[in-house]
């Protein structure tokens, strides 16, 4: 079953048809979501009532487009805010972890490394509830002790950011460590010989070398944060990120405005994804 070994025509064709069917299966749900964003009907279903841009730009009820729909625009803003902080925290901690695991030897290194991988195999909903329970206990105790309010420890955006960060940091650590391992330390030593300080050498030599990995990790972190649902669901307060808002709409049944949002999401995530691949490519050169 390799190119150099001849196969029967029937087998080769069956195989090709199977693979084609597979890609149709992959593309079908996304295609219909996008197609119905342009259907001139208040339900995202057949029959096809003609083409319209109303679900993007409309401002007459029930044809309210994405760009005139306040709650959706607001939740996109919330998602961006969360994604920004998650990505910033993740690359900061990820870079520090990379230096720790690649450059230092210490007791329990192996154990800590495995511990660092654990967030990947804990179901997201459990990460969410454990952080919820913990922060709630801390808040209750602090409030009993001081008589002050600690809103940051109640369900809300700070907890959503911490919850998403708790597992996205692992990805950032892995991506940045992989790059740091390829770094030739003699470059840093040369800088030290030429009179650079330790920190100066890292800032001018090592960090620029790590940049493609850091940028790639930041893009992946934004992507993962933007589409995270399980962890966010348990920690969300009154300000809902986009996935939560869309989920609520979806349960109630909604106009094709949801398709329009989805179409925008598909375009943006495909672009971000391609961008992260480009960073990976540059890393290899």
């Amino acid at each position, binding site marked *: *079953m*390799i*190119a*150099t*070994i001849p196969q029967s025509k029937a087998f080769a064709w069956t*195989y090709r048809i*199977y*693979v084609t069917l*597979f*890609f149709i*299966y*992959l*593309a*079908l*749900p*996304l295609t*219909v*979501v996008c197609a119905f964003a342009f259907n001139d009907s208040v*339900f*995202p*279903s057949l*029959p096809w009532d003609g083409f319209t841009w109303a679900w993007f730009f409309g401002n007459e009820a029930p044809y309210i487009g994405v760009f005139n729909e306040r709650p959706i625009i607001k939740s996109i803003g919330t998602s961006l805010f969360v994604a920004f902080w998650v990505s910033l925290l993740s690359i900061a*901690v990820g870079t*520090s*972890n990379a*230096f*720790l695991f690649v450059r*230092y030897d*210490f007791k329990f290194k192996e154990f800590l490394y495995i*511990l660092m*991988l*654990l967030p*990947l*195999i*804990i*179901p*997201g*909903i*459990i990460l969410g*509830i*454990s*952080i919820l*329970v*913990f922060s709630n206990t801390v808040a209750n105790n602090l409030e009993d002790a001081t008589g002050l309010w600690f809103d940051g420890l109640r369900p809300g955006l700070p907890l959503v950011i911490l*919850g998403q*960060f708790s597992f996205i940091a692992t990805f950032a650590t892995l991506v940045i460590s992989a790059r740091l391992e390829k770094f030739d330390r003699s470059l840093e030593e040369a800088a030290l010989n030429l009179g650079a300080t330790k920190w100066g050498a890292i800032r001018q030599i090592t960090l620029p070398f790590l940049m493609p990995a850091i940028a790639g990790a930041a893009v992946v972190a934004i*992507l993962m944060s933007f*589409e995270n*649902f*399980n962890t966010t669901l*348990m920690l969300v307060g009154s300000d809902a990120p986009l*996935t939560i808002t*869309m*989920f609520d709409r*979806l*349960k109630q049944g909604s106009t094709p405005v949801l398709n329009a949002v*989805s179409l925008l999401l*598909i375009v943006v*995530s*495909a672009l971000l994804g391609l961008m992260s691949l480009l960073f990976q490519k540059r890393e290899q050169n």
Partner: protein
Amino acid sequence: MTQAQSRLGLYLLMAPLMLWLLLLIIIPHIGMFLVSISVKTGVRQYVTGFGNYMVFFTEPLYWNTFARTAFMSIAATFLTLLIGFPVAYYIAKLTRGRTKTTLFLMCLIPFWVSELVRTFGWMILLRETGIFSSFLQYIGVHSGPVEFLYNDAAIMIGLVYTSMLFMVVPLVTTLDSLDDSLIEAGYDLGGNGISILREIIIPHAMPGIVSGCIVVFMLSLGNYLTPILLGGKDSLWFTGLIYSQFITRFNWELGSAFGFLLLGLSSTIVWVGLKLSRQSLTDTVGR
């Protein structure tokens, strides 16, 4: 660099890691365990005991849902492997150059998109007023609308679709590293397609199969969106029970116990998978 400086650097780099792991992973899980073993006896009064876990074992609805979630996740994992393997093989071995990159990218793109959007797509396809139902009426197979949504088959389709990438990518990576000459040698020695698949290809792909299966199983077990949106009233999923104990019933003690049972199941399966295939966690997910 002096010894003291190096020490200081080590501690400074250690600080963020420890803060992250202690405050967001370790202590919260210990805290959740403590909550799960406290049984409510009155208003703000608790005693320590395994009462919440007993509730799970004595209430058939709870452990039935637990078993159902586990079995359906295993089934979804096998289906994903069965469907994904031929495609991964095709990409890895029967295409090259630009076609290969394009096909691989086409596999990746759907998974950069939010799971919510993908599930929404399946709802549009499967529901009573959806594409499949309209199509069947159009070609005259069926006279009235057909509901494909809100049953276990719909959940399966959704789960398999959602986890496909996590199977295909590791499979393509391991199959790529299989030298074509090994397969040729197999044919030279008189093997046929099936024996070569069994003796050469599958053993070589084992690491990829295992890591794919582990990730797909975990994702299915911990999935919330797909069973809720595509499943019917009777298609309960264990994560749904956890959510309702926490948010609807406000019974955090029972919810924490459920959370621990789910975590226990998922860790056990991961551990067994790693042991059976003699791999370590670092090789499987730490890449």
